């Protein structure tokens, strides 16, 4: 394959209420085959960098739907996610190093919480993703963020 690659980047336009009109490489579109619970009909998302380590997971097909996401292991060092065999198969996960875990943040007036119970699991090898439910009651749907991420 190498050496014979044809470089053809398809840019996809996405209309967003928060960022205006943006363009992304089609290959960077993440597919949630089952949608995200509450938004079953929205299957395509893109990650938009915000302030490291914060990103937005923005729906491609709805200008208003976007989630604030973060790598949970930065803020919760003891956090771990067990991905079940059927979930691995569903996402086509072949190598653990391909897995990217993101947690949705919920920002209210005076606090910010992380949904540690329902992380987003992304296979970076094929851009398939799903929100899974962890069968562990130690992890909260709304875990208060221990400290703000470093701004620098």
């Amino acid at each position: 394959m190498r050496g014979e690659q044809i470089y053809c980047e398809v840019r996809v336009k996405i209309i967003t209420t928060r960022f205006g009109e943006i363009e992304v490489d089609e290959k960077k579109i993440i597919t949630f085959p089952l949608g995200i619970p509450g938004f079953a009909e929205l299957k395509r998302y893109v990650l938009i960098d915000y302030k490291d380590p914060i990103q937005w997971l923005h729906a491609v097909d709805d200008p208003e739907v976007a989630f604030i996401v973060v790598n949970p292991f930065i803020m919760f060092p003891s956090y771990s996610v067990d991905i079940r065999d059927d979930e691995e198969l569903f996402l086509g996960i072949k190598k653990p190093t391909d897995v990217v875990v993101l947690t949705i943040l919920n920002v209210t007036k005076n606090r910010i919480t992380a949904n540690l119970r329902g992380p987003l699991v992304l296979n970076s090898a094929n851009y398939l993703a799903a929100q899974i439910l962890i069968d562990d009651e130690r992890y909260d749907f709304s875990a208060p963020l221990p400290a703000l991420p470093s701004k620098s």
Partner: protein
Amino acid sequence: MLVLTRKTGQIITIGDEIRIKVVDVGNGIVKLGIEAPRELPIFREELYEKLKQLNRESAKMDMDRLKTFFGEQ
């Protein structure tokens, strides 16, 4: 709603691909084993409802609120 009576170890099939087995019963608790196609997500309903509700809230976050939180203008 269809109501079926089953004993421990017995199975209910739904279509060709879904099997629900009563693994254990006792103290008001039923343990079920479920076989279903991978593309069918299986959740405990109350947790799934909670996840949906939380996701709907989380999808509404606006930029200003996030900026305020991080001490920006």
